[in-house]
């Protein structure tokens, strides 16, 4: 066994903020690429939901357009909860959350890294669900405006969800607690996302859609800022 020599230097915490964000996101994506346990659970759940809705709602083409946004966001919200819960449980169960918190970086870097990876998982699931939904319901979902709404809604959802998941994971009832904490808080995001998506799908005028888009952007900024400020207190005993 060789004697380790002292070849490294202590780096100032501030200088590695962006690298720490990238490291956390890279670590989550690399681990998921191997295990696929999180993505497969989210994907199976999402596909089952849209399949069940397809058989349950035998609708004409006009009604389909009006219910699509609701079905889509219900699917994304519940699948997102599965992903958020699992993503933080992996950290907690093997003590890795402590490993992250021991790093000499601003703890908001850990939060942003987790948000990026959770957002990536959600967008991957959405990218698979959308074409399947288009085929099953015979609706074109690949409209730039609709895709923008899905992106903005997903950002807001994961920004709040990552914060609340790190809070819920400290408890024994985390699987039950996360949806109870999360859904009341993300109601404004989900309503704005459903309304804006519905507007694009029913070819509503832009001045009807714009307020919902603005609301989505405002909530994304507000929730991200709040989470940035309180994350340190949420994860520390």
């Amino acid at each position, binding site marked *: 066994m060789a004697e380790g020599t002292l070849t490294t230097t*202590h780096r100032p915490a501030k200088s590695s903020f962006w690298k720490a964000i990238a490291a956390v996101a890279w670590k989550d994506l690399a681990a998921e690429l191997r295990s696929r346990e999180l993505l497969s659970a989210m994907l199976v759940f999402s596909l089952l939901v849209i399949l069940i809705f397809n058989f349950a709602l035998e609708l004409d083409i006009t009604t389909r357009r009006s219910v699509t946004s609701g079905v889509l966001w219900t699917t994304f919200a519940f699948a997102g909860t599965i992903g958020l819960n699992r993503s933080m449980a992996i950290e907690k169960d093997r003590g890795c959350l402590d490993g992250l918190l*021991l790093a000499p970086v601003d703890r908001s870097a850990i939060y942003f890294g987790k948000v990026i990876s959770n957002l990536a998982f959600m967008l991957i699931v959405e990218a698979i669900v959308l074409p399947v939904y288009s085929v099953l319901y015979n609706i074109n979902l690949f409209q730039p405006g609709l895709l923008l709404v899905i992106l903005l809604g997903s950002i807001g959802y994961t920004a709040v969800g990552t914060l609340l998941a790190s809070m819920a994971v400290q408890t024994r009832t985390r699987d039950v607690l996360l949806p109870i904490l999360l859904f009341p808080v993300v109601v404004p995001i989900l309503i704005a996302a459903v309304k804006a998506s519905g507007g694009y799908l029913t070819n509503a005028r832009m001045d009807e859609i714009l307020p919902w888009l603005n609301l989505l952007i405002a909530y994304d900024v507000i929730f991200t800022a709040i989470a940035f400020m309180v994350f340190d207190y949420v994860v520390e*005993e």
Partner: protein
Amino acid sequence: MIEVKKLVKRFGLKTVLRGVDFQVQPGEFVALLGPNGAGKTTFLRILASLSRPSLGSVDIAGYSLPKQAAAVRARLGVVSHLPLLYPDLTAEENLTFYARMYGIQNADARITEVLEMVGLEQRRKDLVRTFSRGMQQRLAIGRAVLHDPDVMLFDEPYTGLDQDASSMLDGVLQTVAGQGRTVVMTSHDLARAEDLATRFDILSRGVIAASSTREGLGKNNLLTFYKQALAG
């Protein structure tokens, strides 16, 4: 190197630490012993900046907790009974991840050096999920020394290890301590603590009930000292 004064930690109405005073000189290896529920893990979590003290002061390497927590964490390595490793990453990927989190320069060379130190160089490309508990614990020590910390905290590092793995961990611990680091280790294994540590502190009912250096034990063995401290 470590100076703790009148440390109190409360969880709601329950007081776990009741005014702990604790000093460690540079290069000392202190075994923190005590029965279950004495507050050893809580104490170590406060030193590691994972938990905030309710009252009292904690200074490590000249930096104060919790105000200068990032500076303390840069000089601290922590090993617990959980390995703090990702099973779906290889040994090398785990260390690369932590090297990025600590902003380590020449990370590849340092990772190779650390893997050699813990005897896992041949397994660097293997997933951590394929490692035995003992190998995971050795890699956990590698992770903890990666940024060359001045202070090492070990919280029950022998938990769940068989005899061979424990013996191998002894060697790694001696190597780590032999590099001039300050070490604080909690343990229930008095025999191991007696072999490794240079000082023994007994934590009981939330305070340091007794403290002795190896020389200070005299003719008594550690077990006698431990029993006397708990009885008093």
